[in-house]
């Protein structure tokens, strides 16, 4: 509980209907400092802005929401502040390094200015973009051409100054990406080189910004599921689950037992294949191509299973609000066991090749180190944070779907280098396999969807035979699931870390606002600082080990 915060600011805050503490914008910095230093809330989950243009009875048009977790990652606190017509507030980058990019995103998407921010400029949209797309009065289809890429010198020059470089003559500037095989397609890192060493680095993202959040505001709740597939496309089903989980939280429904277990099984399988593709890619970046085949072929087998189950290989859209699209097929268990066996074999073969491999050790150990405190301050989560030795796993600290009853271990690293991040993932593959086996044994019979036809579709037999069923179907398809008004954040443990959705509903079938808390975004913000002082080849491995997925990063 935030005792000091409550005691010191008692007279200055009010609590709104959804449990958020509302403060004036002048007090936010002080409040966050008290929370961080005295109440032990060291972890900034996310910051986002809200445009209340179409909502009545709000004091101002814009508000900013801050989400924090405490040191045990169990309690979440929400602070909210309204922004007056000056459209400016204090930056909190002095307290949380993770706020740097988050605030830039708010400036880019909403046009709210942050005073004393070190480098307030666009981050997702290009330099020539005019306007702020997530404002409610920006038309969704108004695209704007970009003719020239940013040269990033405006960010690089001050950065070089802090490192003590007055002239740029002895340095060589190089772009790693955005079209570079090791930059995974869409990430650009602009580096200043002294020989082979990176003295300064600046990252630019947004090359795959696809307007997820704006699209959400124009579709019904179930129509958003395919969009979530394409956030982290290596583990589409986990995104489905995270999103459905958040909406179900607003609805206040409890899933049937069978649905929970199926979500655990398929979710963990997604986690495995996500880790497989991450490890395969980083080993290729290292030049160990053989391992790619060992790790990628089992994934191919999982694709076959998912095609049978969901009809799609990669973007499955398997979940629905209040359940899933259909039940497991006959013979699923047999296929699943075959998949797990092949995964185990592939991982075993790979480990045989690299476990005692001198080259592998030299390339990964003590490379790209990030300390515990820094990682928390920068908002890293998931395997990247666990590699630093912080036992933060939402499946343990805030269990959902009966995770507390499964017997599994958290994989922890000790140094926080590339080696740890990779080995944590190898271990998590094993642990996920354990969870799947336990869940398969305990899988109960029963329904897979909530038995409430205001949420899930009625059986087709009813649609064709009685008017009630027909109307339910019609309403759900045309208007969407009616979700009561709420401002709500809920997260699950995604493959890359805390994957949360902050959803604002207004009672209609379409969300008023959806904000994803993408784990990659914060990992990527930390990346330029991690690689400064190392070599180019190490920078490539560091990027691979953080498992940056552009779809989730840029949304």
């Amino acid at each position: 509980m935030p005792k000091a915060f409550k005691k010191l600011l008692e007279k200055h805050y009010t609590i709104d209907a959804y449990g958020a503490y509302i403060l004036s914008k002048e007090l936010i910095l002080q409040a966050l400092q008290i929370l961080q230093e005295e109440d032990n809330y060291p972890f900034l989950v996310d910051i986002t802005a809200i445009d209340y243009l179409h909502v009545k009875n709000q004091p101002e048009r814009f508000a900013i929401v801050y989400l924090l977790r405490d040191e045990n990652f169990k309690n979440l606190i929400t602070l909210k502040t309204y922004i007056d017509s000056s459209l400016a507030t204090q930056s909190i980058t002095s307290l949380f390094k993770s706020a740097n990019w988050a605030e830039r995103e708010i400036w880019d998407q909403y046009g709210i200015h942050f005073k004393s921010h070190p480098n307030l400029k666009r981050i997702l949209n290009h330099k020539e973009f005019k306007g702020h797309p997530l404002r409610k009065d920006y038309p969704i289809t108004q695209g704007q051409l970009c003719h020239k890429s940013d040269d990033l010198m405006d960010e690089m020059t001050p950065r070089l100054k802090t490192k003590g470089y007055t002239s740029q003559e002895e340095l060589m500037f190089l772009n790693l990406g955005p079209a570079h095989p090791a930059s995974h397609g869409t990430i650009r890192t602009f580096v200043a080189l002294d020989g082979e060493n990176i003295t300064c680095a600046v990252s630019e993202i947004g090359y795959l910004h696809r307007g997820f959040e704006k699209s959400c505001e124009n579709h019904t709740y179930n129509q958003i599921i395919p969009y979530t597939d394409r956030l982290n496309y290596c583990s589409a089903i986990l995104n489905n689950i995270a999103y459905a989980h958040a909406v179900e939280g607003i609805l206040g429904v409890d899933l049937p037992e069978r649905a929970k277990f199926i979500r655990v099984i398929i979710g963990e399988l997604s986690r495995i294949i996500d880790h497989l593709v991450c490890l395969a890619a980083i080993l290729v970046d290292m030049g160990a191509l053989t391992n790619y085949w060992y790790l990628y072929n089992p994934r191919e087998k999982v694709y076959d299973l998912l095609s049978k189950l969901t009809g799609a290989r990669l973007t499955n859209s398997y979940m629905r609000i209040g359940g899933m699209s259909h039940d497991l097929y006959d013979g699923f268990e047999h296929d699943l066991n075959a998949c797990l066996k092949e995964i185990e074999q592939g991982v075993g073969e790979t480990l045989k090749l690299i476990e005692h491999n001198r080259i592998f050790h030299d390339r990964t150990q003590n490379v790209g180190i990030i300390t515990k405190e820094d990682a928390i301050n920068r908002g890293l989560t998931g395997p990247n944070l666990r590699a630093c030795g912080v036992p933060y796993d939402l499946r343990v600290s805030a269990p959902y779907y009966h995770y507390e009853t499964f017997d599994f271990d958290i994989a922890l690293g000790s140094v926080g280098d590339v080696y740890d991040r990779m080995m944590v993932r190898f271990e998590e593959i094993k642990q996920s396999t354990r969870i799947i086996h336990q869940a398969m044994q305990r899988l109960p019979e029963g329904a897979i969807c909530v038995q409430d036809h205001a949420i899930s579709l009625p059986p087709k037999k009813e649609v064709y035979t009685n008017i009630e069923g027909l109307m339910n179907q019609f309403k759900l398809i045309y208007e969407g699931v009616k979700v009561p008004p709420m401002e709500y954040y809920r997260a699950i443990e995604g493959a890359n870390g805390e994957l949360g959705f902050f959803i604002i509903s207004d009672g209609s079938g379409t969300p008023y606002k959806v904000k994803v808390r993408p784990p990659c975004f914060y990992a990527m913000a930390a990346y330029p600082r991690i690689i400064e002082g190392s070599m180019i080849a190490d920078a490539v491995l560091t990027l691979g080990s953080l498992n940056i997925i552009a779809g989730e990063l840029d949304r």
Partner: protein
Amino acid sequence: MAVGAEAIFGESLITTTLDSAISWARESSMWPYIFGTACCAIEFMSVASSKYDISRFGAEVVRFSPRQADLLIIAGTISYKQAPILKKIYDQMNEPKWVISAGACACSGGFYDNYTTLQGVDSIIPVDVYVAGCPPRPEAFLDALLEIQKIQATQSLLEDRAKRVFKGVLDA
């Protein structure tokens, strides 16, 4: 009954036209530049892996340098921010070059009908083959490859591809 040179040298010699010989060489040794940005690129990884094995068509030499490639495969969403980069890479490729636009996003923007996504890459560069799907199955990628081979087989060397007239929105 063979005549001419083949009658003299037997089976150690074939007479054919230069056109078909060069086309045959081209179509069985394409060097793709995979401009992979998103989900489609993950599917392309499957195409390159052992199950679907793009090297059956002689196109496994995936290169990330426009100077070493003659087939540009655009796999993934192209945003307005990415467009100038894609155009630059296309311009840097040497003739003769071919382009596959793979997946709904590259072909038309897909279901990202919004302020940030380019509504089809053919507004900035010319496209030879479009592949449907979101993402396309690996078989669809291979099918596109076969389509490109057909184009190569039917086009004569005398047709100068560089002389094609195309004006996109980013062409000044």
